[in-house]
């Protein structure tokens, strides 16, 4: 009986040895290509029709823009943690010149690998840490939500707006507050009820949250989660809603008013072009907002899909709001601004800077309830 174990071990070791022999004799990845190789790391399957899908659209735009000059690839379903470190490193080893990591949770892994490969350019989406060869990029998602607020305020009859949100992080809170500012600019009586789904992506739960909000009387819904299921629910219940990340018109032809579409293509194309001509930089160093690319409607990083299911007067108001944000005549967070507990955040004439945006931990006036924790 004792011998058996050793035979098993020996057998397996022999297999490993044989495999290893062949492995080391197989030719390595072909070296030095004239093409620039760019890789993307995705959190989910690009078919989610939300966050990752928008990045995939951006990748395809890159491919179309550069044609033969750039070769792109992606890795999907990469969990945020040690696995991400391994995957990013493997991409670096496989001869990629530039790697985009498209979820907040890749921040530490990207930083780790960036330090190991100083000659490769890393670009992390939505994070706040940078390095010599690691840049960050983000979209001013909240700008689109102001326009949503305007449309919601002019569309609602019950004056109750439902908002399905993922997690109480600044990006999401910015969106809720921006929506509220837009809402209040046209309708002083409407209020926003927020439901935290505590997930970015759980279609059934998002649908449940939407049903609950409709049951509570909401007739316009907004979402900061990724699946189209809130809009599908709205469609069935005969209320209205806004699409997230990509145009979700097909899922809710008569419910979607419009969608804020994350348009990563221009950012990716610009960064790759800079990498090609040598002007790619990451700002002054880590932990400064200065080195961050953060743009919105004015640079087409965020685009709005066609205004539908609304009278032309509302569409016009929406267009005006959009243009106002883009040309700077509307400043979303400008004083006087109160939080929903009656404290003054901004005095008349003051505006919120980027640092203030990232420190948001309050609801502005018009939002019901408290931020959890």
């Amino acid at each position, binding site marked *: 009986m004792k011998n058996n*174990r050793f035979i098993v071990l020996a057998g397996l070791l022999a297999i490993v040895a044989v495999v290893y022999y062949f492995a080391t004799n197989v030719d390595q990845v072909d070296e030095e290509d004239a093409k620039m190789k760019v890789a993307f790391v995705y959190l989910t399957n690009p078919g989610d029709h939300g966050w990752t899908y928008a990045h995939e659209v951006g990748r395809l735009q890159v491919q179309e823009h550069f044609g033969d000059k750039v070769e792109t690839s992606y890795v*999907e379903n990469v969990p945020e943690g040690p696995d991400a*470190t*391994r*995957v990013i490193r*493997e991409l670096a080893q496989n001869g990629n010149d530039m790697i985009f990591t498209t979820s907040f949770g890749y921040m530490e892994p990207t930083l780790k690998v960036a330090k190991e490969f100083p000659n490769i350019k890393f670009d992390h989406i939505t994070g*706040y840490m940078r390095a010599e060869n690691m840049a960050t990029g983000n979209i001013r998602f909240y700008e689109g939500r102001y326009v949503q607020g305007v449309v919601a305020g002019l569309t609602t009859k019950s004056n109750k707006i439902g908002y399905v949100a993922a997690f109480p992080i*600044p990006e999401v809170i910015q969106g809720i507050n921006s929506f509220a500012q837009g809402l209040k600019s046209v309708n002083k009586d409407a209020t926003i009820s927020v439901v935290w789904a505590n997930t970015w992506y759980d279609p059934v739960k998002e649908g449940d949250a939407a049903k609950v909000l409709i049951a509570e009387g909401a007739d316009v819904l907004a979402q900061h989660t990724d699946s189209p299921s809130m809009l599908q629910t709205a469609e069935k219940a005969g209320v209205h809603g806004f699409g997230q990340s990509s145009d979700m018109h097909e899922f809710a032809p008569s419910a979607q008013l419009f969608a804020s579409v994350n348009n990563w293509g221009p950012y990716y194309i610009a960064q790759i072009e800079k990498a090609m001509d040598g002007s790619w930089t990451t700002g002054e160093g880590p932990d400064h907002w200065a080195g961050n690319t953060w743009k919105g409607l004015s640079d087409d990083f965020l685009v709005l899909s066609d205004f539908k299911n609304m009278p032309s007067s509302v569409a016009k108001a929406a267009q005006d709001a959009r243009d106002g944000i883009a040309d700077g005549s509307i400043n979303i967070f400008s004083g006087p601004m109160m939080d929903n507990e009656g404290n003054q955040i901004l005095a008349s004439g003051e505006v919120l800077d980027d640092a203030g945006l990232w420190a948001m931990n309050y609801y502005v006036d018009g939002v019901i309830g408290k931020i959890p924790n």
Partner: protein
Amino acid sequence: MFYLVPRNEIPLSFRITIPIISVVLTIICGFFIFSVLGYEPDKALYHFFISPLSRVDKIADLFVKACPLMIIGTGLVLCFRANIWNIGAEGQLIMGAIFAGALALYFPNTQSIWLLPFMAILAFLGGAFWALIPALLKIKLRTNEILVTLMLTYVASLFLDWLVRGPWRSPTSFGFPLTAYYPDVGLISKIYFPGIGYISQLHWGVIMAILICLFCWFTMEKTIFGFQFKLIGDSPKALRFSGFNESNTTLSIFIISGGLAGLAGMIEVSANIGQLQPNISFGYGFTAIIVAFLARLNPAAVIISALLIALIEVGGDSAQIALAIPKVVTGVFKGILLFFLLAGETLTKYEIKYNFNLQSKTND
């Protein structure tokens, strides 16, 4: 119709060949799956099974990935041998990480080298505490441990979620669900090889995992303590005759397996992540069940089986990077491998007899 007859003795050749045949059959299945999906099967299999072995640093990555699987798998081998179905190692892992994390976060500025050992002890206690609940319920009330351990896994993971989003969230994380970083003395360092430097992420936790496996193997095979563990599974009556207390044995098995899972959680966080976040485990506790089975319930073989499962996981990423094969194929592979292994288990335990006369089948 075929039916099963228990074997009196398990043939030597079976013990050796079954795991190997299972792996080979899985690979053959993979060949067909890739052909059907329209990938070149030879290339796909190369990236799945061979490319992760093609360089030293990639092999180091395998060990890093296998590290928690080895530690948890060893604990589960003890359980399963004793016929105790602890399938909540995932939850015990999380509790271990939380206990260790509490210490690290309570002393953010400490320089003491004692932090890490105490974190390890707390992690063991945390995992053991979480395993103690089903253990006591099983002993005192004969409650089914499969269900309790499974339920507690979800409770633990929600508890961690609440901690990192609420009370333990770092004030400097811009509201993102992350705790503060552990102090440097609370991290497990990478192994420095003189003249070579670091090899990928290979860290001291891996060495510890291998030592734990070997220690458990030694205890199981060579000591009276291990003998008692085997007896409780094979024949509880004999255990009582030989003077051991069944309850105490059950209790210690739960404590050891839960504690080891907790330790794995602490090592994973301290070596690879450096802070707590909502997800720290990615199903290691469940995957370790496959590892324990693949090792045919032998703690020493756990080392190899954990590496093999790590190979499939890592290979899944490699195949995706190289050939854009969807990640879900990894799950299909793991499932098929486990199916073959389980079927192999049957072949070693039973003889399969054929009988075309259905009448005589059920009669004596």
